[in-house]
């Protein structure tokens, strides 16, 4: 499930927080150190750990995990798990950062969205669980999700929990009314946008939110943009303005210039209302989108359908991902084996994991078995007029490109993307120049932070 990183802090708390944040210079040593320990621990060591009375604290904003935890505790009676919601997104990560610097008050496990796994590995917060997980670990999850939690030398920094493969949610009624076929390619999409807006100037085929850096990133993921590549030893290849990124930026800038897509800022009431009142005829988003729409656009229930993203070349089927989380073990936990076992159990146990896709969690699971469970895949979704929407997204999930990697400073990258490119697209200024500025600024930031960078 996608949750916005809402940073609701007032400035009064600022000094106090910064006071705690920095401690007296006890920055944990950079990651990489324990990567040698990828050889599995023995079965007896695992058995011993799972029989040691332990209480695990787990920070997550996924609601109501008590059923899953009860199943785990039944299997391993000596281990107790406390799931605590310390805030969604931003506040959650800030608390983790505070803990990382002070070395105190950290949980044993934490939810980490894929795009932040490298950031928290960088500050040495996440434990390498490769020695503790089962031999079949990698086969239990969709392959691209494994690449999202993997580090160098076989290290694993989290267990994939849920994902958001990108698809297209569209209003079947609007498409029918104006004779629009479901666009298969981005060219079709642009033509449909023009046709629809000409037919009804109050309706747009899509909205390009200037503050949706994560969507732009997912479009790039699909188009083959690979902005970051870790070369090890804090060295990165950085190309946020690679040809695929330029293609994306140009494409959306052209649609905005033509006036055939709207540019409303996303994630506010006006935008929510836009879905409910039929201003936007599609929403290009992750697999968690249906759930979100069902809550925000109740009046349009039954009118929506799901389809794959338009493609860059006819006949292709490639997608990107937007959102999704992993369950990570925090370095310094007293019982890393129990923590890793819980993380793996929660997200792959055949009895427990299917619960993740039911209320109140309603996640789009990363576990292959849960994804392909008949009950999940064949469910007819009323909001989608009885369409088997999960089946559409499960098929899309197979097409998510595997090799997309994140930087260890995603917040900064999103911010630059939004400040430079988002502003240029909505302000109709030179988008390629803005992309070049973004590249320059990110390179500068990375160098200032001590990274070795190359293009």
């Amino acid at each position, binding site marked *: 499930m996608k949750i916005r990183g809402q*940073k*609701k*802090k*007032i*400035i009064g708390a*600022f*000094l*106090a*927080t*910064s*006071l705690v*944040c*920095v401690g007296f*210079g006890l*920055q944990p040593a*950079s990651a990489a150190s324990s990567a040698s320990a990828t050889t599995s621990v023995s079965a007896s060591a695992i058995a011993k750990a799972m029989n040691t009375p332990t209480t695990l604290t787990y920070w997550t904003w996924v609601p109501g995990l008590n059923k899953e935890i009860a199943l785990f505790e039944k299997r391993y009676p000596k281990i107790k798990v406390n799931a605590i919601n310390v805030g969604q997104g*931003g506040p959650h990560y*800030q608390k983790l*950062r505070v803990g990382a610097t002070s070395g105190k008050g950290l949980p044993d496990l934490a939810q980490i969205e894929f795009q932040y796994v490298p950031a928290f590995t*960088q*500050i040495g917060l996440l434990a390498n669980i490769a020695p503790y997980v089962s031999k079949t670990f990698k086969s239990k999850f969709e392959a691209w999700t494994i690449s999202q939690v993997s580090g160098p030398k076989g290290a694993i920094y989290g267990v994939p929990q849920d994902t958001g493969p990108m698809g297209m949610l569209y209003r079947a009624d609007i498409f029918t009314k104006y004779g629009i076929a479901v666009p298969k390619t981005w060219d079709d999409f642009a033509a449909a946008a023009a046709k629809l807006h000409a037919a009804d100037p109050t309706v747009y085929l899509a909205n390009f939110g*200037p*503050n949706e850096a994560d969507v732009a990133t997912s479009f790039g993921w699909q188009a083959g943009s690979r902005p970051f590549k870790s070369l090890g030893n*804090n060295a990165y290849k950085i190309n946020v303005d690679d040809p695929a990124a330029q293609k994306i930026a140009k494409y959306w800038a052209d649609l905005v210039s033509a006036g055939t897509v709207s540019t*409303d*800022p*996303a*994630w*506010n*009431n*006006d935008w929510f*209302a*836009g879905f409910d*009142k039929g*201003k936007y005829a599609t929403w290009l988003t992750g697999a968690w989108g249906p759930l979100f729409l069902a809550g925000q656009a109740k009046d349009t229930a039954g009118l929506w359908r799901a389809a794959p993203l338009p493609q860059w070349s006819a006949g292709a089927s490639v997608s990107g991902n937007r959102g999704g989380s992993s369950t990570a073990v925090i370095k310094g936990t007293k019982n890393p084996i129990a923590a890793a076992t819980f993380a793996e159990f929660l997200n792959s146990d055949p009895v427990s994991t299917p619960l993740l896709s039911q209320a109140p969690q309603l996640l789009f699971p990363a576990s292959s078995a849960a994804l392909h469970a008949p009950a999940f895949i064949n469910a007819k979704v009323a909001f989608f007029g009885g369409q088997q929407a999960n089946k559409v997204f499960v098929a899309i999930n197979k097409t998510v490109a595997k090799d997309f990697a994140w930087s*260890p*400073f995603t*917040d*900064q990258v999103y*911010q630059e993307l*939004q*400040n430079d490119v*988002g*502003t240029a697209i*909505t*302000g109709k200024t030179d988008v390629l120049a803005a992309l070049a500025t973004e590249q320059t600024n990110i390179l500068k*930031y990375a160098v*200032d*932070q*001590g*990274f070795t960078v190359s293009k």
Partner: protein
Amino acid sequence: MAKRSRHGKAGLLFVAPFMVVFVLTLVVPLVYSGYLSFFRNRLVGGISFVGTKNYIQAFHDHAFWSGLERVVGFFFIQVPFMLAAALIFALVIDSGKLRFPKLIRILIFIPYAVPAVIAAIMWGYLYGPNFGLLAQISRYLHTPSIHFLNGWMTLPSIANIVTWEYVGYNMIIMYAALKSFSTDLYEAASMDGANGFQLAWHIKIPQLRPAIFLCLIFSVIGSFQLFTEPYQMTPLSPAVLNNSFTPNIYAYDEAFVSQNINYAATISFMLGFAVLIAASFVGLVSRQSRKRAVNV
């Protein structure tokens, strides 16, 4: 002598609770932030002492200065309106010519009791360009809807929220001052034939000067520290309300998005100095004008 020193000790005892809180929550964090601003903590390489390098960087930082310019501009747009309105409300309520003065006083004051976060959310809804209340009204009247949080309109729209929030607070300060004045002068003025306006202009406002300057100082500080309203409204207008819209937003962003706690401390200190200079300037003007008033 002995008696005096015992009094001294009692006094210390009385201020001790305040001093403890003051030192722990203000002085210590302040000193610590000052200490931090001379260091740098990088994702790779950790913490190092950099002397005044952060300050030199901030001095040449366009993002900081443009934010500072903006809050100074905000001060000149917003504060005169707000204080004039507060003064008028205070004088009108004090004139005794209103029915239900207490009710009106409360109504004007209530927005101050609304947390700034809630106020920003509420006004954000009112301002919404498509489905906000004001947009719906203009659609009903067939007039073009105004994009309140777009381009140059953004600052006045935020000024409007801040005025709405704080006019009552300033009014209460002025009204309380008015209530403390002796009514003898008023009586004497009425005897001389002064009407309500003359009374306000020649008697009340000159006496109110210290209270108005107090409000002005609070407003200088408030304007320079502008944060909550524009920060909360960022999702409504991300292109304009960006990460350096005001110096405080910039400091917050440096600390929690860019992970540059030390530079954030530097920005905070630079802003602190700017507030100090502006507040001293207002204080100076106030003293000068009081002197002039006495001389006349």
